[in-house]
């Protein structure tokens, strides 16, 4: 399945991702700069912050418990579309997902 990461400078990178991975894991596996994921997806940091593209917000669903608390500590502006990418699990219906990356993660 495909995911497109759009960097803060507008650079788009489309990658092949594995179903079942998180959006963070797919970014790491495909060497995307702009997603750090320091804690490995344990919700201990906010270094995998992303903005879900407006067209996909409904499909990715709401923030999980505790996610907004972590996002309070994100390095970049938190918007209504902000998510921790480690908490978005890739399912078939997210094929084609587009996420935008913040300017900074730390």
């Amino acid at each position: 399945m495909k995911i497109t990461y759009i960097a803060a400078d507008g650079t788009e990178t489309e990658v092949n991702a594995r179903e079942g991975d998180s959006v963070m894991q797919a970014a790491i596996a495909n060497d995307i700069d702009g997603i750090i994921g320091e804690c490995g997806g344990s919700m201990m940091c906010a270094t995998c912050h992303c903005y879900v593209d407006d067209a996909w917000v409904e499909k990715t669903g709401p923030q999980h418990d505790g996610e907004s608390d972590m996002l309070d500590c994100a390095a970049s502006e938190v918007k209504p579309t902000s998510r921790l990418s480690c908490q978005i699990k890739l399912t078939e219906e997210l094929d084609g997902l587009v996420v935008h990356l913040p300017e900074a993660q730390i």
Partner: protein
Amino acid sequence: MDRILIVGAGQGGFQAAASLRQEGFAGEIVLFGEEPGLPYQRPPLSKAYMADGDADRLLLKPASFYERSTITYRPEVRIGAIDRAAREVVTAAGERLGYDHLILATGARNFRPPIPGQEADGVLELRTLADAVRIRARLAETRHAIVIGGGFIGLEFAAMARAAGVGVTVLEAAPRLMGRALSPAMSEFFLAAHREMGTEVLLGAAARRIEAEGGKVSGVDTADVRVVPGDLVLIATGIRPNVELAEAAGLHVDNGIVVDESLLTSDPAISALGDAASFPLPEGGRARLESVQAAVDHARHIAKRLLRGESAPYAAVPWFWSDQGKLKLQIAGLGTAADESQDVPQPEGAKMVLLYRQGRLIAAETVNAPGQHMAARRLIGAPRSALEAAGYDLKAALRQGAA
């Protein structure tokens, strides 16, 4: 500066290499690791990896990262010596490589207490991916696992094994669980939680001998003369920092490689970080922390010093986590020097213990309360009175400007 060498390719060594490039270092970076494969994360080995067995997910970065960042990664290379006079490292195979700066990220190894019988088949430990692969394969045919040591790793394993339907007994020699890291109130909470999960927890129970039948482990004889039967034994009795390389090179070593507030060793051409480094705390005293946070923040600090010439002392607030079953333990700060502990009532399923010294918050231990934890990271050092004014709701205290 033309060449920086990094010894140790755990999360700290990896981060040092990545941060040096991020900070604009244009010279050569060589990262030495003793294990095979690309640098990976250790924390999931006792958690997510046990569930999914997917080693690819552990990688810190794929191979392409090292290529495009021109980081020379050299796996399966042990460094045998540092020739400080010549500013060279010497590999175990005798190869010499010069450095302008050397970063020691040698980490730690598991401590094996002198319990007889450890050579039996089925006696395992958990530190590396190879260890985790062995445990995972073995667990599928295990009926009852015995964990020696009730610390983070042992209890994470216990929770995971219980979830997989395996019987578990935890033997802890001390009177309480995770006693080196946690307040008594939090130890008590986890004791009840693990018993609730169906784990048998024996406190004050030292393992005297590992019993075997036909070469395979069959149980553990505890000091109170009860033999606990089991077909897998995990030894999880803490770690020892890898300081021998530094010590042999004449660097100052005392419970870790001793560094100053800028993370330099007693040789200004050598820095040290992570589990192996004993560093000064801003509030006085020293610490050697066994955590991802310290390894990563140390690495970033060293890179900034080397590239930007920043001389600010290292002062990051420590944080830790441990996932045990459905319980997410989070710790901000260091509570070992506390003179007062406060169990703050939380909603059902959550827990929070605040630790103070001389009326100021020095640490917060929380379970399933990420908002409180994140606020606590910014409230370390705040006076108790400011927290009291917010009803000990740390998020509210932060909003009210308690930090």
